[in-house]
């Protein structure tokens, strides 16, 4: 799909002397669920706040639905749904009053859809917001973000603080209500297992830089773990320069190498008759290897005096 609903080009942002985003370039295709991943403090929320015009970048260009958040922030906010981790509604209001409060801000507010979602989320219009459980509050936030029929939905760690079952339910709601309906979902999270089943594309932000931006399936095909017997690891080390190692760990009598461009690496190992087996990784493991992996360690499987990290392979 050619159309991109979000485009960031070489965006930079710092708070004082602390750089937060460094030359971030990113584009999100229309109609997809885009997982925006990163550890706490990686710059995810800063990026999202720039997308909705709450803060300005120091350099670079941002386009959201073809609009510039610096000049058209209100138009962008009218066109998107935004559910943030720290969303607090007005506790004294009843659910119905909250809906009435939000209505005038969104010209496309659909009261019938809001009523339908109230029923679906099992929320009582007469209930006070302060009496809602955490899960109900998040669902009300989701309802408010959906009821004006947004063209794009930004979810900034919305499931933070929910129990695992509630998180799964929230994801199910998001998928059921948005996917397949042409709405782009920009899902930011550090809980990878949460976004893995729903994401079409994944970007990983680390220390203010995009280190991965790829369709989820391609990423799973590209990044694999190759397990090599201990005594053949030195032979594999000879080809280290030709492979894109991201992490090396020792587990028992085997060495586990997580690497990019796994297809080529397997070809190389087969050509040199090095015994190995390939392990598929989930997004969590890929993320870990990309963000905290130690590709330069160890220099040799037989090196003495080197602290070796034991890991289950």
């Amino acid at each position, binding site marked *: 799909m050619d159309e991109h609903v979000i485009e960031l080009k070489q965006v930079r942002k710092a708070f004082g002397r602390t750089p937060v985003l460094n030359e971030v370039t990113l584009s999100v295709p229309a109609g997809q669920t885009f997982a925006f991943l990163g550890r706490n403090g990686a710059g995810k929320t800063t990026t999202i706040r720039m997308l909705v015009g709450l803060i300005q970048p120091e350099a670079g260009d941002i386009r959201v639905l073809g609009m510039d958040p610096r000049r058209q922030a209100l138009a962008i906010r009218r066109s998107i749904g935004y559910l943030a981790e720290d969303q607090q509604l007005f*506790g004294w209001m009843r659910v119905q009053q909250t809906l009435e*409060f*939000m209505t*005038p801000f969104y010209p496309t507010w659909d009261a019938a859809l809001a009523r339908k979602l109230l029923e679906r989320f099992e929320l009582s219009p007469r209930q006070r917001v302060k009496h809602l459980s955490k899960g109900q509050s998040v669902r009300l936030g989701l309802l408010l973000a959906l009821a004006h029929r947004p063209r794009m939905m930004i979810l900034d760690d919305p499931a933070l603080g929910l129990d695992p079952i509630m998180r799964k339910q929230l994801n199910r709601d998001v998928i059921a209500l948005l996917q397949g309906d042409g709405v782009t979902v920009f899902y930011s999270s550090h809980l990878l297992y949460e976004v893995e089943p729903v994401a079409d594309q994944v970007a990983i932000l680390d220390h203010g830089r995009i280190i991965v931006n790829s369709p989820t399936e391609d990423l799973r095909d590209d990044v694999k773990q190759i397990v090599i017997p201990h005594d053949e690891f030195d032979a594999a080390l000879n080809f280290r320069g030709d492979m894109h190692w991201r992490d090396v760990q020792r587990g028992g009598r085997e060495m586990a190498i997580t690497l990019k461009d796994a297809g080529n690496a397997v070809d190389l190992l087969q050509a040199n008759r090095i015994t190995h087996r390939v392990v598929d990784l989930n997004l969590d493991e890929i993320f870990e290897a990309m963000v905290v992996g130690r590709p330069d360690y160890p220099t040799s499987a037989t090196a003495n005096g080197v602290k070796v990290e034991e890991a289950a392979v």
Partner: protein
Amino acid sequence: MTGAIHIAPSRWQMIAVLLRKELHEWWSAIALGCFTIGGFVAIGLQSRLIPDEAVLIGMVISGGLIFPLICAMPVVAAERAEGSVNLLLRLPAPAWLVLAVKTAVAVVGVIVPLLLALAIMGALAGYREVRPNIFWALFLLAGLMAVNVLMWTMCLGIRQPNEARVGLIGAAVCIGTVMTMFFIDDALSNEQMVKAIAAWTPVGLFAVLDGSRSEEFVSLLLGVAARHVVVLSLLWAYAAWRFSQPGRTRG
């Protein structure tokens, strides 16, 4: 869910819901102000234990200084502490509009008890012990001080994370102003200069009247009010700019 047609929403409808929200959050404070300040004036005048002028000065201190200081504390800080300010800032409405509605309701909130006190004074005592120009000057003084204390406290404390810290800022402004006036008075011994400086401050307004003929009180205060429009506009512009900036993120 695509293909929605976007029409510019009515700003008046936005203002209406924001006003309704603010009034709902303010009504108890307004009622409390009316009860305490109105009650003080009514009992003071009716009992005749103290002179009417003393009742009026008490009204100036309670309604023009203490009550607005208390009222200014939660205007933004309560929502910041609760977290609901983020929802307001993410609405498709300008941040300055949200703050303008908050400010307008807060100003009404501190003025209403003074108007009630004025009505009670008129009904119970009128000008029986106080000359009309002093009567009106004290009410004008109370109103000016109330708006000043409210605005200075609210605007300078706009980024504070809780009400207590806003209150400290307000107290610092009030005490700092008075101390500065004493210092200038002592150091310069120049009455005219002290008055000129006092005219720009939020709570130094008593000094403007000091030594003047009571016939000039009202016109003096009206002149001061014009200067305060300029100062408070600048303060509010600063607050609107700071209000629209979200805090640092954690990631």
